């Protein structure tokens, strides 16, 4: 059974065609990079994968199940988590609360349970959520900031918090949309190590990234999009020397 397979995927917004018949196979346990010039359709692909947008055409299967018509929360419970290119944290919640929200679809306590539980005794599930969130904050080195408002964190920390929040749902596939945007060299290096660590724990990663050094350093496979079309795919080394890819990037810079 394939892990993630995208077939013949197209998406057009009135007038603009963002994706044209894209096919993509993501193998379990890999870091799969998705690159391409601005406007190539990378984020649009993520939005369709996570259920925010519906494809105009095409099919997506995740572990054998067709997911392209499902609601975002259903897709998340099936095991696809994501971060956003334009950070979308819950700004006025604390760092810890943000991660705790990420645990929502793996937990059950409803309003009635909340209200009718015994006084002075925290619900076991609530304790578990908190413990896991704390652990994830340590994992992304934000533990000492856990009581701060999410909005008060510097940019780079916000991006790591988004990763922790997504990990709280225990995804099998994690979609990272430009996780190093706005980070300096050191932060970027740390993040590369973090991504590798996440992969080593068994989470498959689909990574949109403009930092070619990072992409070539940690990816197992690279797919290149240009004007909504897949123009190349392969091992990082092959991609670096592909004339089409160089052409696409040079063309985009002019």
């Amino acid at each position, binding site marked *: 059974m394939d892990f993630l397979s995208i077939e013949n995927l197209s998406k057009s917004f009135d007038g603009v065609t963002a994706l044209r018949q894209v096919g993509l196979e993501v193998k379990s346990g890999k870091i799969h990079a998705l690159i391409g010039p601005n406007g190539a359709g990378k984020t649009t692909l993520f939005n369709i994968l996570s259920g925010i947008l519906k494809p105009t055409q095409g099919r997506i299967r995740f572990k054998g199940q067709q997911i392209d018509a499902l609601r975002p929360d259903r897709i998340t419970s099936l095991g696809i988590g994501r971060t956003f290119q334009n950070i979308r944290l819950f700004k*006025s919640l604390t760092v810890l609360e943000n991660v705790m929200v990420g645990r929502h679809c793996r937990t059950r306590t409803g309003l009635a349970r909340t209200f009718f539980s015994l006084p002075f005794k925290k619900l076991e599930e*609530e304790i578990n959520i908190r413990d896991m969130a704390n652990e994830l904050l340590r994992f992304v080195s934000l533990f000492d900031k856990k009581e701060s408002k999410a909005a008060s964190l510097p940019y780079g920390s916000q991006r790591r918090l988004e990763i922790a929040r997504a990990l709280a749902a225990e995804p099998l596939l994690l979609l990272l949309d430009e996780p190093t945007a706005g980070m300096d060299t050191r932060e970027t290096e740390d993040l590369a190590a973090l991504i590798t660590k996440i992969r080593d724990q068994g989470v498959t990663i689909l990574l949109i990234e403009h930092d070619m050094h990072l992409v070539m350093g940690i990816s197992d496979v690279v797919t290149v999009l240009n004007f909504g079309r897949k123009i190349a795919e392969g091992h990082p080394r092959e991609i670096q020397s592909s004339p089409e890819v160089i052409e696409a990037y040079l063309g985009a810079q002019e």
Partner: protein
Amino acid sequence: MFSSYIESILIFNGIHIIMALSLYLPFSAGQISLAQAGFMAIGAYASSVMTLFWGFPFYIALFLSGLLSAMTGVLVGFPAIRIKGIYLLLLTLAFGEMVRVFFLNFEFTGGASGMGGMDLQTNFVNVYTIVAILIIFFYRLSKSRMGRAFESMREDELAAEVMGINIVKAKLLAFGVGAFIAGLGGGLYAHYVMYIDSPKFGFLLAVEFFVFVVFGGMEIFWGPIIGTTLLTLIPEVVRFLKEWRMIFYGLVIVVLMIVRPQGLIDKKLVDDITRYAKKLF
């Protein structure tokens, strides 16, 4: 316990707090509602029918009218699922007016001449017992899985959905439970004033509850409680304000928007007070 004048002010204040909290619940999930006066009317009329016509015990009538109001709340919640901001405001406003017009023409509950003759059942003790229960509920909610889900929806609905929250279910829940609370408020009101007619539950009343919440602050449930209490008591103390209440509210809101846009009470203030109190004891 108190002079009857003060007691009646406090009872109205308690009912207003219940109404403000009923509005705060959908608010906390990012859902604006001007329908609360409508839910209150449903609670008031339904409970009166049950006690007066059918001879139900008061508390059973109160609970059942809360449930009826909640069911209506879920029905209103459905079209509200995909509507946001100003459109949601208009939809809930229209619903509130529909309820008012319905009772104006519904002969079974007295139509335009209203409905009277209920027993006096509401008193300081039962109103504030319900307020206390609601405080416990909202306190627990604020530290719970669903409470966080609501808040995350208010912050960023799309991100909340992508984080695995079923926002349709959550919105209906917030609307339904909010309407339940408003139904209780209506039942208590009806069995205190002992005469109800539909113009009381109009648009202005909905706006009044709205002002209580915005004034008090929407970040934490203490906001609507304190906001309501201040805005209910001040016009009583400053007598002449009563006639000019709406203008007074308008001024208060304008000043507040400039000085303290998040409302009077916010999480930070509550945290500071808690920390200070802990140091004292």
